[in-house]
């Protein structure tokens, strides 16, 4: 009998093209997603070497990082952003790559539109010049971020040079308590693993809690795998996955036959992982980051930690540096931290489910006078769906700005940035120094927690929120 294999083993084995002696394996890549920031130099490399794109039909492009989230009919004000977007257009035209351009109804953040259009499917290998490619693993794919030279390699060969990563099972038992979301779960996990606990591994999330999550929640969890150092996170496909994919634009035509293949993907009973950690969903409370990396996180009911409380010297100095940058003092209750800005968006939390959760909190309330709050849907589709449900009016009636799809203030490459010293509750994935604008201070939270913070002007425990 063949040895039991994990989901990772199965996808890996199926995609190794060859392992030439003395070389790393060549791994076949099924889908390649491209955006404007990490691709220009790759296309330029192809041009210089006189190479073509091996399988243009396996590559999909969209501008998302630089795009303005205000009126799309206006020209892009920043000439350098405009040049990057124009370059993507020209490259897609020249090399025959499908582009969801700015004016396209389906444009959006690359990690939102991939699953939404059914480009992302179970069992596939998927890469993108972007570290949050891990998102696509939520559908049972092996998906990871690559650098620009590797983007060029995939364009030219439809393969990558890769050593096989190790496998790491993150088993989550039980169910998430009321008010606690997938975002809180993944922040809780990162807090325990540290920002490098997953380095060298592919995380596979398993267990009752994960099985009970919807697709949007699974994407939130897998999205942030990179913040624990893991290049990929994955969740075995099941009925939730198949129901999500059925009827999507690029879903297989013979869908039931595809499902029969996908059903064989989950790890075999007894398959061995290189490492296993078990978490209990009941232990998770709503999370708020206090520092400048996503592992510097505590429950909303806790206090900002004192740097002296860390035993490791690196952790101690990182914490002291972080508190200095964040303008916080150890011992301060999280719920007393006042806010200037609130950002609901990013590939972590900009799907329709996220917007529904935030709107439910906001309904019947007004944004605090001291706060400027914005909602940026993840894609054109999410935006249309939200508007059809009237969510945009819930937000705007409360004083939120309602914007066009893109990465926006997740990294502030477009005009949506924090001013120095401004403090923001953000549903994005990175609270690095300067990430949302030089000197800006970011606290990562769930959409519901961000919405409640916008109304209150400071963090509040969503578990005691009075919904109107």
């Amino acid at each position, binding site marked *: 009998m063949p040895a039991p294999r994990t989901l990772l083993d199965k996808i890996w084995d199926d995609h190794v093209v060859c392992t030439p002696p003395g070389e790393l394996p060549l791994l076949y890549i099924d889908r390649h997603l491209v955006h404007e920031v990490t691709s220009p130099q790759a296309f330029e490399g192809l041009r210089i070497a006189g190479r073509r794109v091996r399988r243009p039909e396996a590559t999909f492009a969209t501008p998302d990082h630089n795009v303005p989230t205000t009126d799309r009919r206006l020209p892009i004000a*920043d000439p350098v952003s405009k040049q990057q977007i124009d370059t993507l257009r020209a490259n897609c035209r020249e090399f025959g790559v499908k582009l969801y351009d700015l004016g396209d109804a389906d444009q959006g953040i690359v990690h939102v539109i991939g699953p939404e259009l059914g480009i992302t499917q179970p069992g596939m290998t998927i890469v993108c010049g972007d570290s949050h490619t891990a998102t696509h693993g939520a559908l049972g794919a092996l998906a990871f971020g*690559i650098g620009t030279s590797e983007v060029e390699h995939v364009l030219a060969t439809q393969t990558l*040079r890769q*050593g096989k990563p190790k496998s790491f099972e993150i088993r989550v038992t039980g169910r998430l308590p009321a008010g606690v979301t997938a975002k809180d779960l993944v922040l809780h996990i990162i807090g325990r693993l540290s920002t490098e606990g997953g380095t060298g591994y592919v995380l596979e999330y398993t267990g009752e809690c994960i099985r009970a999550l919807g697709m949007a929640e699974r994407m939130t969890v897998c999205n942030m795998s990179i913040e624990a*150092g893991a290049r990929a996170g994955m969740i075995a496909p099941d009925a939730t996955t198949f129901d999500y994919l059925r009827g999507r634009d690029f879903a297989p035509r013979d869908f039931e036959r595809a499902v029969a293949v996908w059903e064989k993907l989950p790890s075999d009973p007894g398959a061995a992982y290189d490492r296993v950690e078990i978490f209990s969903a009941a232990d998770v409370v709503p999370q708020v980051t206090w520092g400048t990396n996503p592992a510097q996180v505590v429950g909303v009911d806790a206090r900002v930690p004192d740097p002296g409380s860390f035993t490791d010297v690196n952790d101690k100095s990182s914490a002291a540096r972080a508190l200095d940058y964040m303008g916080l003092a150890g011992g301060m209750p999280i719920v007393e931290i006042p806010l200037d800005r609130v950002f609901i968006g990013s590939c972590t939390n900009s799907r329709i489910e996220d917007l529904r959760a935030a709107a439910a909190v906001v309904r019947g309330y007004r944004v605090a006078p001291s706060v400027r709050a914005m909602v940026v849907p993840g894609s054109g589709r999410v935006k249309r769906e939200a508007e059809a449900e009237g969510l945009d009016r819930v937000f705007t009636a409360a004083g939120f700005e309602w914007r066009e799809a893109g990465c926006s203030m997740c990294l502030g490459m477009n005009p949506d940035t924090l001013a120095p010293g401004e403090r923001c509750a953000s549903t994005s994935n990175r609270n690095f120094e300067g990430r949302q604008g030089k000197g800006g201070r970011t606290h990562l939270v769930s959409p519901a927690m961000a919405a409640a913070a916008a109304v209150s002007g400071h963090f509040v425990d969503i578990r005691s929120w009075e919904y109107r």
Partner: protein
Amino acid sequence: MEPFTTHSGLVAALDRANVDTDQIIPKQFLKRIERTGFGQFLFFDWRFLPDGSPDPAFELNQPAVQGATILLARRNFGCGSSREHAPWALADYGFRAVIAPTFADIFFNNCFQNGMLPIRLTEAEVDELFKRAAGPGYRLHIDLREGTLHDDAGFTASFTVDPFRRQCLLEGLDDIGLSLRHTDAIAVWEAAHGLPAVGG
């Protein structure tokens, strides 16, 4: 790609853990469409004061480390985004090697694509190097063929690199060119998985 065989150079010490790619090259400099010219923006937010002048407190602005070609850092160097602009900026600034106890995966891979050597040493070895690099004009000599490095005062350490990556660096090989030698195997895989022939 410039081959890397042996290298001797001045060491700059950056005593920080979890240095992320947003710090190595902040996002406002990702809009260029070339691979070159990023060195001037390396560690921009740390290197320069709001008025644009160099921050005298920042490690790389110390007169003693001007011209450094080897960067010494703490664990999890290069975490965060996949931007290859990070190694481009380090290389363009003049670095040929980075030494740390651990690196983030994507950054680690990206280095090799750009003729730059990331070297993993133990925490204890890195601690020792930080002590030694506190003195002025501290230099290291790296030999990739042997997988060793040493200074002029008795410190030696060895490191390992994936044999394929090592060979590519030693010979300055173009990865894509190497992979294109296996086009037949790629076509066989595609046919076995029901994909139409390329260009057919």
